[in-house]
């Protein structure tokens, strides 16, 4: 008999809910069969931890005396966006320090940027805030420099326009020289391959058609509680899928939001990609309510069933050519070796499987302890029926 989210929440409140992780459900279903597993299990928890660009925070730092209407703002010398209101600012994860030499000394180290400011803030460190303004009758002040701390801020919110990619490319380098990419360091002539997904633990690979994950879904975000607030940018649900419905290309994405003050630096880490730039690694976990057998069967997905495309990042990717050198599955990727063009290549992740597992486990404990209730999505995110097509930029004028 199908369950409802309200019924599952009742069980959570009574301490009777059966919660397992996306790894544990695989063996459990193999033993008990889909029918019995679907009846017994109430929630399957997923997790992912890796660099997620298109992330950032907004906050309100409070009015000074006399007042200032921020025009340009820096946090530990990293520029933030002040074009929102007088003292509301948005800091993006990939923003570089004002004086960063970037790639002038190639490959740049990018040792500190937006992602690191976010980590430092959550760690409770004081951050140097510098503000300049043009001055108005109501906001006369033109300059301000002070130390701020997360506890002093009025609101501090993590708001990420694109996270939790449903699958991603595997990156390799066909050229003769080492390259530095957002997929890490790629050794020449297929010297290594990098991937970035938690595979069988990954949230949207356990809910491939977004049957339970939608706008309003409550999630584990950065060690605290957050919500899915929209589909993410570059959301692309209409890619080719396997028989089981698993996208074989980068597909859906989620926009997520949550109170930064409740988060932890373990799950929000500044990232320095040599030769590329900075970013933020984020821990996210999505609970999947087992409402029926179909939803359960999706959560039994294994690494060996999830395929990704191997893409050359020396020429094909930079030139915008969508060419795949072959398909590999996450079982192979996670074993440490894949074979491409008859060559055995060592693999590296960027997304941490160990941390993904820890998140799924943590979220499971939160639910079992009754600290985390499931929410009813208020609107689905567009699926394969939406016929969304990614648009390329047409340069004109």
């Amino acid at each position, binding site marked *: 008999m199908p369950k409802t989210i309200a019924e599952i929440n009742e069980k959570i409140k009574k301490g009777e809910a059966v919660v397992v992780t996306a790894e544990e459900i695989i063996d459990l279903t193999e033993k008990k069969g889909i029918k019995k597993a679907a009846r017994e299990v109430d929630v399957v928890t997923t997790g992912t931890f890796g660099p997620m660009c298109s992330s950032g925070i907004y906050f309100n730092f409070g009015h000074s005396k006399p007042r200032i209407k921020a025009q340009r703002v820096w946090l530990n010398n990293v520029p933030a966006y002040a074009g929102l209101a007088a003292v509301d600012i948005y800091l993006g994860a990939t923003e570089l320090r004002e004086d960063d030499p970037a790639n002038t000394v190639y490959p740049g180290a990018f040792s500190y940027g937006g992602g690191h400011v976010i980590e430092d803030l959550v760690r409770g460190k004081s951050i140097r805030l510098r503000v300049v303004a043009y001055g108005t009758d109501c906001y006369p002040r033109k300059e301000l420099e002070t130390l701020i701390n997360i506890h002093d801020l009025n609101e501090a919110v993590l708001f990420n326009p694109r996270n939790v990619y449903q699958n991603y490319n595997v990156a390799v380098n066909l050229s003769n020289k080492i390259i530095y990419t957002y997929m890490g*360091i790629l050794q020449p002539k297929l*010297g290594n391959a990098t991937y970035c997904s938690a595979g069988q633990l990954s949230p949207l690979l356990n809910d491939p058609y977004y049957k339970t994950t939608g706008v309003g879904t409550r999630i584990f975000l950065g060690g605290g509680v957050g919500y899915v607030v929209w589909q993410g940018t570059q959301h692309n649900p209409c890619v080719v899928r396997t028989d089981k419905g698993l996208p074989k290309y980068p597909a859906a994405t989620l926009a997520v939001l949550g109170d930064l003050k409740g988060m932890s630096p373990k799950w929000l880490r500044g990232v320095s990609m*040599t030769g590329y730039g900075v970013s933020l690694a984020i821990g996210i976990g999505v609970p999947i309510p087992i409402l029926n057998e179909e939803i359960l069967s999706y959560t039994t997905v294994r690494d060996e069933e999830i395929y990704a495309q191997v893409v050359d990042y020396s020429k094909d990717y930079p030139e915008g050519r969508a060419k795949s050198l072959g398909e590999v599955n996450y079982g192979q990727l996670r*074993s*440490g070796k894949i074979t491409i063009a008859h060559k055995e290549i060592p*693999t590296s992740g960027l997304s*941490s499987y*160990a941390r993904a597992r820890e998140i799924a486990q943590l979220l499971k404990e939160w639910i079992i302890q009754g600290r985390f209730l499931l929410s009813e999505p208020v609107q689905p995110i567009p699926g394969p029926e939406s016929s969304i097509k990614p648009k390329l930029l047409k340069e004109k004028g």
Partner: protein
Amino acid sequence: MDQTPIQKRRIVLTFPKETVNQPITYHLVKDYDLMINILRAKVSPEEEGKLVIELSGRARDIKKAITYLKDLGVSIQPLAQDIKWLEDRCTHCTACISICPSGALSVDRKEMFVSFDSEKCILCTLCIPACPFKAIEILL
């Protein structure tokens, strides 16, 4: 026969300009009965030399050799923690794994935890730029 156990010590030698041309390693082998394993060598534009070596020999010979080097004006830093893996900064992402040539950084494929074995590390420093989380430090 001398039963004193053989010890190993990794050190970084910084040579001032004037000593660069001296046959120092020759003396270490011949006069102090040491085995030398050169792990890394570098001569900077201003002709200051850096040498990362592993000395194996009897403790008292190593001690004497170090005095000899110091007398020549060579500065010495221990290299016990030459490459340092900061476990609490490591996220076990495995980005370093396909870069490390020696297997010093490796993954337990079941748990997917990364660990570091300093015995296997050849101090190539390739892992430093590969780690997005600054979890590996070089002490030179």
